[in-house]
């Protein structure tokens, strides 16, 4: 495990107010049954604070299923998900952001109201909303009803949740889908900042998403074990 | 001028009042809607989002 400057991280942790000093997310021999069939078995990996894990595999290998399982949205058929450090009383899902294929946006609400709701729902401070919109270049559209947004803009609004509400674990399902080049660069920067701040990222993706030093977990082909 | 309205005056006045209320409601709704649309248009205009047809003088479409 690579330490990236303990002092810098502790300051970042303190600044972000995380109780977590050092966070490790581990899974051993995870298996998930969905729709009556065993999607994958024996998936084990370990991700420490400041590290990113890219989950790859052919379509239907269970990349999204693994993320939903970690988010607590799917029952575990076998194996165990463990984490140490962080908030012991909270489950992984309660300490994680999950950005799936669906954007969780209400067309009737404006861009700002959509983000404001998710910020309030997660108990975060409202001050972070405008900064989050600006981080994803959505501040010009704050009052526009979400119905008018393009797919890329909707995706960026979904990603704005990551900035508005601070959670140590990011579960991203093909985050770069529908994003143009500038948005992908902005996302890469956000991810780098998150990792630098001691966060973890597990992203299901088909190719690199602009963060170097990320390890890869291949599932579906063989019973993948983290390199 | 007001001829005596007879025993059922209440109903007559009631009817005229009801008609007046509903009519006023429609008038107020139309007026408020007009102001609201103008306000949104002015706000959009202030952001520099004007109809492209205005900018290029292209033949008017419904936009």
């Amino acid at each position, binding site marked *: 495990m690579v330490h990236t400057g303990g002092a810098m991280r502790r300051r970042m942790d303190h600044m972000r107010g995380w109780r977590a000093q050092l966070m490790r997310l581990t899974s051993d021999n995870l298996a998930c049954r969905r729709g009556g069939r065993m999607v994958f078995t024996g998936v084990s990996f370990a991700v420490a604070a400041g590290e990113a894990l890219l989950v790859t595999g052919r379509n239907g290998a269970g990349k999204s299923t693994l993320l939903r399982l970690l*988010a607590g949205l799917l029952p575990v058929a076998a194996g165990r998900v463990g984490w140490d450090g962080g908030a012991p009383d909270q489950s992984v899902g309660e300490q994680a952001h999950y950005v799936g294929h669906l954007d*969780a946006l209400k067309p009737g609400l404006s861009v700002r109201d959509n983000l404001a*709701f998710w910020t309030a729902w997660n108990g975060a401070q409202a001050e972070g909303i405008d900064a989050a919109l600006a981080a994803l270049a959505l501040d010009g559209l704050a009052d526009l009803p979400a119905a008018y947004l393009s797919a890329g803009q909707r995706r960026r609004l979904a990603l704005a949740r990551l900035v508005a509400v601070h959670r140590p674990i990011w579960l991203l399902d093909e985050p770069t889908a529908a994003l143009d080049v500038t948005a992908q660069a902005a996302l890469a920067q956000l991810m780098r900042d998150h990792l630098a701040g001691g966060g973890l990222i597990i992203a299901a993706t088909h190719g690199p998403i602009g963060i170097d030093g990320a390890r890869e977990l291949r599932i579906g082909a063989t019973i993948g074990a983290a390199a | 001028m007001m001829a005596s309205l007879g025993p059922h005056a209440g109903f007559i006045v009631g009817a005229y009042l009801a008609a007046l209320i509903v009519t006023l409601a429609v008038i107020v709704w139309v007026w408020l809607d007009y102001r609201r649309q103008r306000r949104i248009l002015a706000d959009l205009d202030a952001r520099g989002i004007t109809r492209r047809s205005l900018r290029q003088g292209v033949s008017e479409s419904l936009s």
Partner: protein
Amino acid sequence: MSALAALYWRDLRLAVRAGGGAAIAALFFLIVVALVPFAVGPDLALLSRIGPAILWLGALLASLLTLDRLIAVDAEDGSLDLLMMTPMPLEAALAAKALAHWTSTCLPLVILSPVLALLLNVEFSAMPAIALTLAAGTPALTFIGLIGAALSVALRRGGVLLAVLVLPFTIPVLIFGVAAANAVIVGPAPFGPPFTILCALSLASAVIAPVAAAAAIRHGLE
């Protein structure tokens, strides 16, 4: 508390908006009640006798049939996933959504009921009683419908399925609601007992339904 309040206000705003479910439920209530005289005939004495029953049936159908989208909308756009990923229990979230639905959909029905009672030639003295019983009984309908909504999300089948699933559970509410309303018109039977039972039904379903609905969603996870 602000998280649940935020969810409550969000659902309320979305329901009351022009395209939201609130107005459609009120129109459905109006049309269902208006249909009965065409079937039964313009006999005023008969209409005034069955008035409370028609108003109750209309309110029951109007609130149930607009409930099947309550959770399905969030499931389809991904909001349900995020609603579940917080320390806030899902039961509380579903209860807040049910309350938002009650305020936006059932409350207008209660307010509309005296006007429709006019169509059914119901006496003036009975109108407040009917409105009161509806106000006391519709929370039970909403919460029972919440279970149906959760089941239809888990089963991925919307529409009338919800009514089929939960209509049997609404029978007690209907019985005591109409009984309480009739007690004021027909007279001998006192208004108190059926009304208090109705309130009890509402309170009980306010506790049981969110738990059942959350369980249905959790077990329906796929």
